[in-house]
């Protein structure tokens, strides 16, 4: 089996997909809208799959492979409904071509929000089911029997009565001549052959041998390598003037050109380009962000938190409930800016000629990469080919197109193919950061300790607001309040507000976005309420989740598997948290201890996940394992700070990542709810930080309200 997006396919600058696959999800009669001739001997019922006379099934995966396993999951879904032979499948990565490959829900070829399975599953299943029905019809015609007397087994159609078989490859020409059924019958879950089984990832072999091609690995004949000297400030900096004399004197430096994001040094190899950058003399106009520092952001946020914000949710009357007396609890929480730190620094390769542009990029956003390159080159989008390579991490960072701009502008300027690479320092200092926010809470408890009122005000920037993508007359940025506005607890008086304060630091989608921080904030505060009420934090949540059965079910599963209620191992504290995000429900119980010097050790993470249907359970677990590490890294270490507009962190020594020696045991339990599929890349992150901090509170009595965790505050006196 080949699942490799080979270098040769990449270099062809297009996708050797056998052409003629213009039949869309709506399963138009074949030919309508077709722009290419059909390839003889290839059955191409739609753009998602084709079968040749050898029976080889070629599946086109539109969702970039960034580690979440889309190459395999997409294939599982299509192969199952097609009843394909798992050993005779090849996978190609779709090019940018929104007419054929757009996500049917969002209508774009931008991939984030854990949307791979949940948005595409139905469409892929229908597309494959249509193909299977056509193959059955073709066999029935061949045998002269009714179509309902035939069935399929992997890669073959079988006549039930006689046991005769025809391989899919033998039916290609006949099937190709049939009309595409509009409402094909889907399998029932008990008929699934691959969905729900633990199938190996198709990309493991290439990733275990170094053969997989990431953006950084692209080679184009005649290619130069470039790196951009960027302003010292995180945003808004502009080149005032520069002197490239010394840079150009370096052997191997070919060009120095000014581009939107700085000065590009184009050379024969990457270290030479970087040396060229160091030799540049640039005078920068630093812009207004040069006035911004982290301490000032924090204090202004705190000051602003006394002002009313835009109301994101209002149930009952919080003011009245607060005034009614009873016990109140107040707290303030703060979270920092965070950078994604994909293992593969940003990069893209571009070639611009008068007739067309080809981009090779590790991108979550082939669609916008195409329109961006079209805008820069002045070419129509259909003249821009975008080849999506493997992504060395995505986490939301690669949905941006800044690195596409870099590559296309530079390639256009020098008239040669250019691989544009960022250093790790560029990557950390010029990101799109998870927003730093400040949060104030007030809650009122009744005589039994249960909350009668919950008031939460968030101060910070909004991602959509900053990007100018707020729809219509919306006043609340949905990304800013995700995980806070949809608080699942049954509290009669509830108000959530958002106050937009944007200091001009670029913000972006960071694995689980608003929920990543709002789950920490709300799940810590509800823990505070439980302790204030003198109740068990699990039982307290459970009682408040009567109207949210799926939250409650994962909470109960995690608690049971973790042995909640029994004493934790000596020296450890246990904490719990639950959150919904991106279509799935997750609950975590974490066991942690604290050394005398305050150092935190996480021992055990128990995760319960309800993602509706688990297409590949082992990879569901992989995503939960990864989500735990991502969430723990943020809680323990993650912090981007600014000094006069410049990011103070630069590489892994001062923006540290969790390492294997800190890795806890992660146990994942999948709750099979039989519901529609939910996301998986993101939902494993949100409950992690609060479960850890709640464990630390249980152990030390110290409530952590600011991330990252400051170990000096946990030090034993």
């Amino acid at each position, binding site marked *: 089996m080949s699942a490799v997006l080979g270098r040769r396919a990449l270099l062809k600058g297009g996708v050797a997909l056998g052409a003629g696959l213009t039949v869309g999800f709506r399963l138009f009669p074949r030919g309508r809208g077709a722009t290419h001739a059909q390839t003889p001997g290839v059955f191409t019922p739609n753009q998602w799959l084709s079968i040749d006379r050898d029976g080889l099934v070629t599946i086109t995966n539109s969702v970039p492979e960034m*580690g979440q396993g889309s190459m395999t999951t997409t294939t599982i879904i299509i192969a199952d409904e097609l009843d394909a032979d798992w050993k005779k499948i090849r996978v190609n990565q779709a090019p940018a071509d929104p007419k054929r490959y757009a996500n049917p829900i969002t209508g774009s070829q931008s991939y984030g929000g854990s949307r791979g399975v949940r948005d595409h599953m139905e469409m892929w299943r229908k597309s494959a089911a249509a193909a299977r029905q056509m193959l059955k019809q073709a066999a029935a015609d061949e045998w002269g029997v009714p179509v309902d007397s035939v069935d399929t087994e992997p890669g073959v159609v079988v006549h039930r009565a006689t046991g005769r078989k025809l391989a899919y490859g033998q039916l290609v020409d006949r099937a190709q001549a049939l009309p595409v059924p509009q409402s094909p019958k889907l399998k029932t879950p008990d008929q699934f052959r691959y969905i729900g089984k633990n199938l190996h990832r198709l990309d493991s*072999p290439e990733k275990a041998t170094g053969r997989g091609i990431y953006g*950084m690995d692209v080679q184009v004949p005649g290619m130069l390598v470039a790196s951009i000297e960027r302003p010292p400030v995180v945003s808004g900096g502009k080149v005032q003037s520069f002197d490239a004399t010394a840079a150009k004197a370096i052997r191997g430096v070919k060009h120095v050109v000014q581009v939107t994001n700085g000065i590009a040094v184009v050379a024969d190899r990457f270290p030479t380009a970087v040396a060229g950058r160091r030799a540049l003399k640039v005078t920068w106009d630093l812009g207004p962000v040069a006035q911004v520092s982290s301490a000032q952001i924090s204090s202004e946020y705190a000051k602003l938190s006394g002002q009313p914000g835009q109301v994101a949710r209002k149930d009952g009357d919080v003011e009245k409930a607060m005034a009614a007396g009873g016990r109140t609890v107040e707290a303030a929480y703060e979270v920092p800016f965070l950078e994604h730190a994909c293992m593969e620094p940003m990069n893209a390769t571009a070639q611009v000629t008068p007739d067309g542009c080809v981009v090779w990029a590790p991108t979550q956003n082939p669609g916008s990469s195409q329109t961006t390159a079209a805008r820069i080159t002045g070419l129509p989008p259909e003249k821009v080919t975008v080849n999506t390579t493997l992504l060395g991490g995505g986490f939301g960072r690669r949905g941006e197109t800044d690195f596409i701009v870099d590559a296309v502008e530079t390639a256009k300027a020098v008239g040669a193919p250019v691989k544009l690479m960022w250093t790790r320092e560029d990557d950390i200092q010029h990101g799109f950061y998870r927003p730093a926010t400040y949060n104030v809470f007030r809650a009122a408890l009744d005589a039994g300790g249960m909350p009668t009122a919950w008031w939460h005000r968030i101060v910070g920037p909004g991602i959509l607001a900053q990007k100018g993508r707020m729809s219509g007359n919306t006043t609340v940025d949905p990304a800013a309040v995700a995980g806070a506005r949809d608080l699942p607890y049954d509290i009669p008086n509830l108000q959530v507000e958002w106050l937009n304060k944007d200091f001009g630091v670029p913000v972006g989608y960071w694995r689980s976005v608003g929920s990543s921080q709002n789950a920490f904030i709300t799940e810590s505060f509800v823990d505070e309420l439980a302790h204030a009420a003198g109740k068990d934090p699990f039982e307290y949540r459970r009682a408040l989740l009567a109207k949210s059965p799926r939250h409650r079910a994962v909470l109960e599963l995690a608690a049971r598997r973790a042995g909640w209620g029994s004493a934790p191992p000596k020296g450890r504290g246990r904490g719990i948290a639950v959150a919904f995000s991106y279509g799935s429900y997750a609950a975590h119980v974490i066991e942690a201890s604290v050394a005398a010097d305050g150092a935190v050790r996480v021992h055990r993470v128990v995760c319960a996940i309800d993602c509706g249907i688990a297409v590949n359970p082992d990879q569901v677990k992989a995503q939960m394992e990864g*989500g735990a590490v991502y969430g723990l890294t943020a809680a323990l270490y993650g912090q981007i700070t600014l000094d006069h507009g410049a990011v103070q962190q630069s*590489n892994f020594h001062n923006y540290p*990542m*969790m390492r*294997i020696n800190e*890795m806890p045991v992660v146990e994942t339990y999948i709750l099979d709810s039989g519901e529609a599929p939910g996301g998986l890349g993101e939902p494993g992150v949100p409950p992690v930080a609060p479960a850890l901090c709640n464990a630390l509170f249980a152990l030390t009595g110290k409530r952590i309200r600011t991330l990252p965790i400051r170990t000096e505050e946990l030090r034993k006196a």
Partner: protein
Amino acid sequence: MITLVVNGKQQRVDAVPDLPLLWAIREDLRLTGTKYGCGMALCGACTVHLDGSPIRSCVTPISAAAGKKVTTIEGLSAQGTHPVQRAWVELDVPQCGFCQSGQIMSAAALLAQKATPTDADIDTAMAGNICRCGTYQRIRAAIHRAAALKKGGAR
């Protein structure tokens, strides 16, 4: 001109002696399995073997590799059948996979030294390799599995 022996093949690289070995491997020899992640020996994505020992090629000048044997992920085994690679596939360790060449080279060097590493040995040997996807639990399990495969007479 510096002569290197990479994956058993003599190679001549036309570069200054302080060029980091990583870039000679990636850009001159076009062996792109070895990755750039930090440039400061902080992440381990660039790990290769120099005379059998794991080194960070991003901070190792090519002059230091002259006359020594360099092994990259491409040279670890001819068919991707080194026990560590087999264990990696068997346990589906990689997610995005970008760090995995470095992880595998570190793990292979560990097993060459210690046939049956403990969890503590693994922590010590592998703490220099960052995985942002968080595959550490599977890396640990796969190293134990590779140790077993190796003992079972695997190549």
